[in-house]
């Protein structure tokens, strides 16, 4: 690629003139309440993978902290995957108490009301005292569920305004067939931070900070000479979702004996596998919707799914980041590092633990900065943040955030 600069998408290329964004969006309890109602109760929310419940009877319990929802996702005898609120119809107990398992029935530990794996109410002990309860109408409360690419999405509206496919607005079409299923094993990293969730959304939507904040961790591996501010390349938007291509330094070769040993055992999630690329078995590398420019030093495609997901397909797996608001100044981050398989040897366990530590340190840098950002914004001296021409996805997110809050059609 002779001149990479012509592929550096600027805000003006996307007609995004909203350079100034009120700090209030990030500090006000009122905005948080509007986000709960107008975004998180309307949008499709990604919460897991179908391969977490591969067999009939498999279930997982997921929290959606923004809505205080506790959700059971279960595969029925019929193979269908359903989602329910984890609340007994009798007196509300969150009856499924294990984070995952396999069963054909859920039994409430309080009075033993019994539910089938499809959520229907099967038995009430002492049923003669509940003549007013129609069992057929008293199953666990369902939540709309749909899937794309093996990802499970929930919608908490009574009736979703749009289908999942309409919501994804073409992102699903461009990434159709991307081989996420080749990487079924994951390590989950979770933490809660004193900051607004959008601080983290924004951090993953620009590369401008990488050479500075991640000076020691990421910069040597990913910031190339011809793109010192790590502009995202070839940004595409699909409704409120987006994707942009990020480079990498293929000649990254640190003078670091422990890291070098790790590379020789099992390549970290992000490190290019040159043999696999040559042989056409490099996971996401050959998918037509990823690295559309065919740059030689392809690092990742950073895929943002509104409102709170970032997915980065990498050479040997992918990273999944999710940002849940808990209040206007508190959030939960979940990072999942997906790989081809669980460790098969102690060498691989060491290598994966090393990659875990390295990935976590980078994310902790982002979280640390988001906390400082919150302190600064809450201090009250500034009424606005300002987004550069090199931060188009921050402007785009803000545009769509405002549209959702205003109740615009999806």
């Amino acid at each position, binding site marked *: 690629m002779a001149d990479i600069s012509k592929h550096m998408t600027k805000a003006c290329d996307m007609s995004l003139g909203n350079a100034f964004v009120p700090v209030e969006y990030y500090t006000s309890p009122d905005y948080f309440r509007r986000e709960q109602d107008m975004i998180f109760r309307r949008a499709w929310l990604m919460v897991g993978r179908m391969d977490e419940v591969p067999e009939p009877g498999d279930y997982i319990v997921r929290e959606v902290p923004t809505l205080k929802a506790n959700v059971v996702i279960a595969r029925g005898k019929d193979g269908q995957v359903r989602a329910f609120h984890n609340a007994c119809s009798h007196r509300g107990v969150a009856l499924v108490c294990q984070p995952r398992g396999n069963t054909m029935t859920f039994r409430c530990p309080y009075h033993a009301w019994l539910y089938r794996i499809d959520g229907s109410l099967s038995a009430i002990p002492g049923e003669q005292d509940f003549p007013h309860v129609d069992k057929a109408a008293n199953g666990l409360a369902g939540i709309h569920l749909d899937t794309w690419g093996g990802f499970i999405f929930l919608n908490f509206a009574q009736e979703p305004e749009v289908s999942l496919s309409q919501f994804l607005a073409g992102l699903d079409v461009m990434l159709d067939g991307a081989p996420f299923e080749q990487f079924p094993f994951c390590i989950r990293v979770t933490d809660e931070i004193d900051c607004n969730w959008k601080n983290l959304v924004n951090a993953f939507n620009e590369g401008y900070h990488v050479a500075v904040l991640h000076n020691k961790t990421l910069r040597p591996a990913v910031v190339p000479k011809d793109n010192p501010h790590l502009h995202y390349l070839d940004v595409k938007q699909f409704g409120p979702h987006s994707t942009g291509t990020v480079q990498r330094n293929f000649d990254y070769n*640190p003078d670091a004996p*422990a890291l070098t*040993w790790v590379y020789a055992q099992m390549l970290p999630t992000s490190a290019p596998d040159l043999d696999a690329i040559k042989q056409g078995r490099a996971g996401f590398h050959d998918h037509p919707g990823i690295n559309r420019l065919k740059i030689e030093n392809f690092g990742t495609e950073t895929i943002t799914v509104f409102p709170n997901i970032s997915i980065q397909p990498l050479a040997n797996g992918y990273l999944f980041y999710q940002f849940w608001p808990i209040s206007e100044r508190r959030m939960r981050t979940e990072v999942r590092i997906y790989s081809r398989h669980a460790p098969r040897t102690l060498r691989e*366990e060491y290598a994966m633990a090393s990659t875990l530590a*390295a990935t*976590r*340190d980078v994310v902790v840098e982002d979280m*640390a900065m988001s906390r400082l950002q919150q302190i600064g914004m809450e201090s009250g001296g500034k009424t606005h943040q300002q987004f550069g021409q090199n931060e188009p996805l921050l402007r785009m997110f803000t545009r769509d955030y405002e549209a959702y809050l205003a109740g615009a059609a999806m």
Partner: protein
Amino acid sequence: MNHVQLPPQFAFLEPFVDDWGSLATQDERYRKRQDLSQAKLEAFHAALAPRLEEVFTYLDTFDPAALPAAEALLFRVVLGLTEASQAVEILGQPRIPHAPYPHTVNMEWVGYQPH
């Protein structure tokens, strides 16, 4: 009551057993790294990093799911280097700049029980 000893050929790691030998999770290792001096982390790294291949050539001869006590202790000590090397090879300091201290992070290997 740590009466388990390292396999004799790895006695050079004895000075690091107190710090790393009883830690059971990655988060405990991450916490330990935050509390050790950079000098201690560098000494551990200097002793072990050049000899990782030697350690694992030895550990290769055991069933990973049924490590005897001495080898399990060895592996726990060695896993400490996954954190120490971040401080020594990458950050140049034990703690991540600007991060809260003490800092803990929940890390779960889904469907796999790490050592």
